[in-house]
């Protein structure tokens, strides 16, 4: 068991709930669970509940990951503009534990950006740096919210294939929020769908035909 929601209900006010009696779980190491659904349904809120940043009104949330690493939506402000990209990637990592740095940098093709400042990067470059920084932390679980929304389709597709290999190799569990179905098709082991406060599992093979989460 890595992450589980059991009959979780949450609402910022008592009148309007974002999720009612929602249950799902990430059970095995290296499993990749995707959550999809229309925008504005509260996917990001569920991510905050999973991280313990918000407490559910009822139900049980268990996060047993040893080193969970989040990439929040529009996480740019968490990059420190007074440090170069290289220092941003390595900041907070204990000395001698930078072993993944080279591999991650080449995975995201950000070698040429290492000496730049975050403010000099485009939206897509920033998102690659953010993801690279998360992987440098040697997480056992990553929780990501629309991590490649500013990347164009061909770049994302290329990246997703290599990222999938990396995640499998390092047995990193993934909780991934997106409304772009091709991301889920490329990487997901399982998919859950959030709409009208209800979470329900979705068949992977249905993705191509369903219109539920058009971009």
């Amino acid at each position, binding site marked *: 068991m890595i992450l589980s929601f059991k009959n979780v209900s949450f609402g910022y006010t008592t009148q309007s709930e974002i999720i009612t009696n929602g249950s799902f779980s990430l059970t095995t190491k290296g499993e990749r669970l995707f959550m999809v659904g229309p925008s504005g349904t509260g996917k990001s809120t569920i991510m905050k509940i999973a*991280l313990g*940043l918000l407490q559910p009104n009822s139900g049980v949330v268990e996060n047993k990951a040893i080193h*969970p*690493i*989040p990439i*929040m939506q529009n*996480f*740019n*402000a*968490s990059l*420190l*503009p*007074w*440090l170069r990209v290289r220092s941003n990637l390595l*900041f*907070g*990592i*204990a000395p001698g534990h930078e072993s993944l740095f080279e591999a991650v940098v080449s995975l995201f093709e950000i070698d040429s950006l290492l000496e730049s*400042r975050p*403010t000099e990067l485009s939206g897509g470059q920033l998102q690659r740096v953010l993801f690279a*920084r998360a992987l440098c*932390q040697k997480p056992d679980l990553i929780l990501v919210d629309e991590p490649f929304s500013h990347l164009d389709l061909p770049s994302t597709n290329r990246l997703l294939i290599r990222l999938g290999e990396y995640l499998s190799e390092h047995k990193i569990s993934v909780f991934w929020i997106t409304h772009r179905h091709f991301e889920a098709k490329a990487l997901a082991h399982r998919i859950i769908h959030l709409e009208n406060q209800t979470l329900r599992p979705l068949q992977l093979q249905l993705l191509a035909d369903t219109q539920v989460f058009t971009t």
Partner: protein
Amino acid sequence: MTVNYSGKKILRKLLPVFGVIVFISIWEVNSYFNLYHLIAPSLSPTTFPSFLSISERLCEIVASVDFWNAARVTVARTLAGFGISMLLGTVLGLLAGRVQLIGVLVNIPVEFFRNLPAIAAMPILILFLGIGTSMKVALCVFGSLFPILIATTTSMQNISEDIHIAARFYGWSGWRLLFIVLLPSALPEIAASGQTALSISLILAVMGEMLIGGDGLGSMIVDAERTFNNLNLYALVMALGIFGCLLAFGLRLIVNRLIFWKVNINWQQS
């Protein structure tokens, strides 16, 4: 068209200089024709000397050792007061912004002291420190501390949620969190309040010297007034104005060089 455009550009560059020329011209015409006499006939002709004669006197004063000794004292007091305020204001601001208990405890005292006219506290400072330099510097600190303290506290409280989340999950803590994340986040705000603090510090340094006497440009100005030496009076005030501009300009130069991410505040929020 191109010529016209570049001509406009040059004109726009020259406009500030033009403003100075207009200002000086009005002054000169006014003093040459004694126009102020029409409004206030009781004033003596020495009340409003011409700009040129003031400038001439300024050149003479600038050549004297006494002037530079006084200027050195005033600027040193200003910078000492400003420096202590920067250090103290930042440390206290970090504490008040980060430690909720301290923030709540100092809230009302800070509100009280920041609204108290600093000069009114001078007699009390004299009780503790006498009338020497330490009192004058303390007065500068008393006036310039609060803008910095408040800016630091506010920017600590406004640290973005993203930074808090990253700190919690990406292992940022201790001195690294303080010196590599929190302090640089607050520096643009601290630097902006520093501009205000520096000019307050100069005001109070001169005020202290004017009221207590002794040394410094402030007491030189009072001496000029008491001996009815109006040319000296104007020239010294002009010199003080120039020092004020130079100090502000110098600080801005240092801040822009050191805090290059100031321009990026909008980027962070986007």
